[in-house]
């Protein structure tokens, strides 16, 4: 078994009392004081996440845009320097290689931010399609990523930078000094809250981590682990690779049709996705609320009148909503809101109903 990787903040996590677990080949903090409390902290104040296990792949050169355009489903032509884009990257079959963020850094320079477990897979995938004149570089090991999320994130971060954070629009970024360190400051996140993601050289990880926590003292900031990151993204119905998206699940099936731009020209998976869009996918991703007592978990079967009609991709007690909720794929004829279905929980059929997504949406 290969050794688990550690982020530069490993010792900080231990000092903060984190419980560490394996995640995507990394040893990561799953929680510090408890998932429910950390979840609430992000919804009501601000949470700081170490997400430097995420991968960064830099693509540079005159053919960079063309390369990215050919392998993602979204339209990279929507980007200008300073903007970011969420997109799936698909197999020719339409299944999803990964979902990622594309940042346009400069005219011929882009950064792909990919899932930790998929770094090697994505890097190799991109290289296969790279022509001469394009340099593809895996910069994951030298890049640290922190996410500061929650209603007070902006106030806290503003204490450490002269960049006017209000000027950064959602899904845009600027370069600027934060506590004297050169950062890419991005108004993005994965919690359903307002917030920022910072990218900077890994050697400054500890300094910035401490500075942000210190700046947030009095604002209720707490370090937050991957456990709450999952419940937060789940309530906001943001897809998680390996759950809602996989090598055999397409973005069309996952309800991410808005990220597939057929009119941009050819790209890997276009034909398969177009066919799926025209005929309609066999299954669709729905939100489910338990009627009976029980929690739907990934892999549980969904049935209707005794027939298997789908499967759960994610499910838990949703802390901000106070209900047991699930996301899952259901055969297309049963996806109307209000439809009652059974979820097989430890051999018992428990009643659930389809509810609208997302489960949680912040006000304003």
């Amino acid at each position, binding site marked *: 078994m290969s050794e688990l990787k550690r982020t530069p903040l490993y010792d900080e996590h231990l000092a903060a009392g984190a*419980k560490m677990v394996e995640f995507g080949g990394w040893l990561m903090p799953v929680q510090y004081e408890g998932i*429910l409390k950390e979840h609430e902290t992000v919804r009501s104040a601000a949470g700081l996440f170490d997400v430097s296990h995420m991968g960064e792949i830099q693509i540079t050169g005159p053919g960079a845009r063309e390369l990215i355009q050919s392998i993602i489903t979204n339209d990279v032509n929507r980007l200008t320097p300073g903007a970011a884009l969420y997109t799936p990257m698909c197999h020719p079959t339409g299944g999803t290689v990964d979902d990622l963020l594309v940042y346009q850094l400069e005219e011929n320079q882009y950064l792909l931010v990919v899932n930790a477990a998929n770094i090697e897979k994505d890097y190799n995938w991109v290289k296969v399609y790279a022509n001469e004149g394009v340099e593809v570089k895996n910069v994951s090991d030298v890049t640290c990523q922190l996410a500061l999320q929650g209603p007070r994130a902006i106030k806290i971060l503003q204490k450490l930078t002269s960049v006017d954070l209000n000027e950064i629009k959602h899904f845009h970024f600027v370069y600027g000094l934060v506590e004297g360190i050169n950062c890419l400051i991005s108004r993005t996140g994965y919690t359903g809250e307002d917030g920022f993601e910072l990218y900077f050289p890994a050697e400054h990880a500890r300094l910035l981590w401490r500075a942000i926590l210190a700046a947030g003292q009095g604002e209720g900031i707490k370090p937050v682990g991957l456990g709450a990151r999952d419940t937060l993204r789940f309530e906001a119905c943001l897809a998680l690779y390996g759950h809602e998206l996989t090598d055999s699940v397409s973005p069309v099936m996952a309800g991410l049709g808005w990220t597939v731009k057929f009119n941009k020209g050819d790209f890997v998976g276009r034909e398969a996705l177009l066919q799926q869009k025209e005929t309609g996918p066999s299954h669709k991703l729905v939100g489910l609320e338990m009627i009976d*007592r*029980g929690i739907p978990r990934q892999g549980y079967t969904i049935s209707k009148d005794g027939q298997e009609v789908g499967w759960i991709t994610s499910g838990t*007690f949703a802390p901000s909503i106070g209900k047991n909720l699930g996301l899952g794929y259901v055969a297309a004829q049963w996806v109307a809101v209000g439809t009652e279905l059974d979820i097989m929980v*430890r051999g018992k059929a428990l009643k659930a109903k389809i509810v609208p997504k997302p489960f949680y949406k912040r006000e304003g």
Partner: protein
Amino acid sequence: MKVPADLKYSKEHEWVKVDGNRAIVGITDFAQESLGDIVFVELPSVGDTVEVDDTFGVVESVKTASDLYVPVSGEVVEVNNEVIDSPELVNQDPYGKGWMMVVEMSDPSQLDNLMSAEEYKAMVEEGN
């Protein structure tokens, strides 16, 4: 980690408090701490017969579901409905308000197969 001296313990991290022919059963402080925030508890019904090493219920944390194992056979004579409504009691007070069920033992000699507090502590510390 609290391990009260007057209780008996199973390998599966249940505790047993003996009261005459009855056994009060719950999960240990170590178990609740390992699970994290408990958000769901499923227990048997009063009148059910439970056999040693079978499962008698489930506790679920935010992240995961874990079976509960029967430490001593017998008839369930009481269940703690309060933890069903407030699963966090298991985190807050695993040896008190977080108890799970009371079993009228059919074979009290099974208690000899359970561990003492010292033995349980040693097992947990060895990481078994």
